[in-house]
């Protein structure tokens, strides 16, 4: 059974595709990659076109879309510029979605209308230098002081940390490994907050940072979900994982789609030039395999998403989906590089750009190894 898109979802796809065609020609994408600068201009335009309203509830001025709407948006954007889906995450995922799922009314009232208008960006401060896959090993301290907490420590690989207004910062507030973590909404203008972007292989423009907190003061009211949510950041985060895995899967699908198309165009041109030759069979079969893998990934992703939309427990399936889509995307991109040959190796080629970008996706958002841990556990192992 395959998922069918609603008319409004079709419309969203067309609208996003039109935006991409208009605003992100190859030169623009290449420029974002080359300069390694956060795509502020494109973010502003996305906001003007109403894309930040997709997943915000109607009462806050949004379109109240679901995870499938988010995926459609990500897939279409990733076809041209994957890093823009991460930047969009600074609004849609780490902003709106987190507040919708885990915020209290005061926090939603304060931020959602402004997020819908594109006035705010959020980032997600979870990973620390010594806690990557072992995310529960958080050490950043948050010590109560009157009505405030005082935060000290370091985060790493926080995307958007130097451009965001608010950082959802995970801290150690009690010794219990998973039951002693608290998440704060930290104003990044607070004294003692310092974020420095890292230079990376790909996903350039994501503003992925090392972040230092030195006596950063936060009111207890800014605990995500309110003061009563102290020490509950771990279960709060678990509630976000299905959506995050599906969103990242959608990004891989957009990437694969472009890689396959680029290869088709490349080999077609070659055929026109040199005529049909049995020698091209290997490359044609490679592309056929890539297209098949893409189709499998796409169906898995949207079917898993429809489970989530229908309220079915799908932890295992979203982990499978993220694992399969990211690994498949990496494989397809590598095959694409091979098919494109020397042309694909030049910076002018979108295939090498997409390859460098997708190489992060088997790592970020839970590595493939962690996804397999989750799947095995869900299988009762």
């Amino acid at each position: 059974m395959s998922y069918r898109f609603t008319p409004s979802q079709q419309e969203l796809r067309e609208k996003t595709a039109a935006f991409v065609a208009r605003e992100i020609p190859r030169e623009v994408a290449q420029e974002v990659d080359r300069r390694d600068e956060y795509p502020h201009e494109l973010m502003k335009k996305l906001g003007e076109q109403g894309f930040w309203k997709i997943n915000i509830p109607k009462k806050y001025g949004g379109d109240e879309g679901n995870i499938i709407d988010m995926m459609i948006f990500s897939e279409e954007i990733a076809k041209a510029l994957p890093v823009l889906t991460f930047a969009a995450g600074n609004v849609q995922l780490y902003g709106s979605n987190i507040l919708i799922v885990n915020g209290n009314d005061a926090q939603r009232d304060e931020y959602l209308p402004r997020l819908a208008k594109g006035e705010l960006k959020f980032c997600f401060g979870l990973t620390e230098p010594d806690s990557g896959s072992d995310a529960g090993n958080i050490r950043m301290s948050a010590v109560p002081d009157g009505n405030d907490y005082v935060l000290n420590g370091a985060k790493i690989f926080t995307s958007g940390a130097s451009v965001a207004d608010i950082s959802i910062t995970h801290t150690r507030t009690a010794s219990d490994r998973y039951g002693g973590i608290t998440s704060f909404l930290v104003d990044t203008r607070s004294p003692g907050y310092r974020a420095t972007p890292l230079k990376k292989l790909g996903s350039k423009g994501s503003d992925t940072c090392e972040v230092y907190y030195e006596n950063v003061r936060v009111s207890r009211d800014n605990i995500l979900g309110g003061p009563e949510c102290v020490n509950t950041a771990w279960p709060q985060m678990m509630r976000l994982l299905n959506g995050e895995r599906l969103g990242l899967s959608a990004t891989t699908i957009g990437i694969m789609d472009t890689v396959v198309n680029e290869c088709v165009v490349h080999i077609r041109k070659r055929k026109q030039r040199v005529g049909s030759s049995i020698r091209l069979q290997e490359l044609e079969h490679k592309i056929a395999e890539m297209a098949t893998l893409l189709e499998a990934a796409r169906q898995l992703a949207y079917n898993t998403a429809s489970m989530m939309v229908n309220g079915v427990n799908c932890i295992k399936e979203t982990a499978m989906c993220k694992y399969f889509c990211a690994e498949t995307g990496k494989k397809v991109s590598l095959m694409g590089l091979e098919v494109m040959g020397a042309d694909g190796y030049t910076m002018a080629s979108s295939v090498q750009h997409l390859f460098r970008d997708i190489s992060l996706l088997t790592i970020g958002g839970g590595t493939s190894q962690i996804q397999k841990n989750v799947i095995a556990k869900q299988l009762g192992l």
Partner: protein
Amino acid sequence: MDFDLNLENTMIRDAVKDWVSKECTREVVGQLEEQGQFPQELFNKLGTLGFSGMMIPERFAGAGVNTLAACIVVEELASAYPVLANCYIGPTFFGGAVISELGSESQKERYLEKIAAQSLMTSLAFAEPEDADVEFTETTAKQRGDQFVIRGEKAYVSLADQAELLIVLARTDGAKVDDEVTLFCVDAKAEGVEVSRVDTMGQWGANTCDISFNDVEVSAADILGGEAQSGKGRQQLASISDTVQLAYAASAVGMAQGAFEYALDYARQRVQFGQVIARYPAIGHMLSDVAAKTEAARLMVYRAAWLREQGKSCSDAINMARCLGAEVAVKSAMDGLQILGGYGYTMEYDIQRYVRDSTSLFSAGKSLDYLKEKISESLVQLDY
């Protein structure tokens, strides 16, 4: 059968390893990478070690042909700094081996001593913007009396911006058969030669270049192997292909080894969930798989080098080693990236460099599908 390197080659390996560990430090390589500059100083220093003459007979001031040793040098260089391996391959293989094997006496006298003593950079200008295959060569060499005039565009020529000697493939005017092509030795600084760099994902410093030949004049004596070789470029290319692909196969093994060691080192130190991550089979077995395949590719390269030096049929062995080598180098780099995780994705760690450099092996010299086709033709033995 003896799997030990002989004393001479053991000493060569130790000497290169030692040199690489002292000269190609992470700081030095990191800085060169950041600047994207040709590693001139390292290249000069490397030249003083006398390894550039390893594919040149002693009577031309070479070190005496030692194909295995040349492969070992490539391997060790590539393991630390793949770009420098390419810089070594240019003079040693593209220059020294090709001219020694196919050059005329006057070409040997003219180039080989310079290659052995000064690492004269040589680039192979075969592929064209539209196609890399010989049959679609559009660059022409028109005969004008005793001269030939070369006109056309070449693409993806490694290190052409540093080259002094270009070996250029052109369709020869006046050849007996339509598809006859000829190889020319062209001075890279000759009038009408225009080299432009192409930005690529990796191999920063060993720049890939496009070349325009705008009516470049060469004499008939500049035909590789002399005037008698006019129109015989195709046969020469087959032999050159073995030389080129053997060098890239050795480079692939080096890259695989370098990325592997880098990832292993990290996996032995990084602690997650209270254990060094190398202890988890998810990581440890990934490494053992890479180690096994790297070893396989290495043995194939060594055997191919031995076959070539014995004058035995070696094309299949070389192409097989080259294909497996590329696969392993890319796998080692990609698995290494996965093992290093977020850190590996940053430019502060070297594994990203192996990812960017190893993927050049998909198309270095020839594409993998082309090489597989050559192997298959030879295995299947059908007349196509």
